[in-house]
């Protein structure tokens, strides 16, 4: 049971990390980064580090998302094609 949850969360981490890299719309990318931070916080909690989990949930999912969305809104939304 414990191993199943670990595998689920770790594969979700890899999936959201790849999404952050591959999504062309930067707003979607910022939301994927928030999901990555949330899964990271759950993983820290399962590994019995609640202090780090609170810090990750507060900074990663809260503050960084606000700053990134603000940056996307005041610059360009689409990533440039190579």
């Amino acid at each position, binding site marked *: 049971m414990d191993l199943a949850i670990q595998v689920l969360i770790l594969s979700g981490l890899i999936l959201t990390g790849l999404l952050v890299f591959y999504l062309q719309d930067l707003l979607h990318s910022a939301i994927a980064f928030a999901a990555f931070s949330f899964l990271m916080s759950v993983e820290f909690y399962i590994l019995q580090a*609640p*202090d780090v*989990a*609170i*810090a990750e949930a*507060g*900074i990663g999912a*809260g*503050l960084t998302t*606000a*700053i990134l*969305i*603000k*940056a996307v809104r*005041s610059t360009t939304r689409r990533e440039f094609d190579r």
Partner: protein
Amino acid sequence: MSKIVSAAADFLYPFVMIFGFYIVLHGHLTPGGGFQGGAVIATGVALMFAAHRYRDIAPIFKKAIFNTCETVGLVLFIGLAFAGLFYGKSFMYNWLARIPGLFGEQVSYGVNPGSLDTGGIIPLLNIAVGLEVLGALSLVIYYLLTYVVQMGVNKHHGQ
């Protein structure tokens, strides 16, 4: 933002703030501490900044408040650390622990229910770091959310 978002933010804001101050004040008993609690409080400030228009929110959250919080936190931290030099043995010595008085209750090894009146200078350092982190992160959010908008407006007017 729409009216629904701002109403929901007004409803959630006190709970976020109370949770943050709880984490700061109970840092020596439960998981968390000054840094985590300050980050949670700054998240509440960012929520208010994101949900309301700038001219509605600017009279309430002033830059001077965050500046004062940050400076007072850092000065309090360094002052408490230097007080260890005068009242105890060394820099950052825990000079309040195990002495009856402020935060000086004895704690023995093992599981216990926990009391707020323990920890020596650790709760005071938690409050100092909490003030500093709350001021610093809120100030970064404030700078980015106010001045970046002005830069965008200036750019459009220039063109």
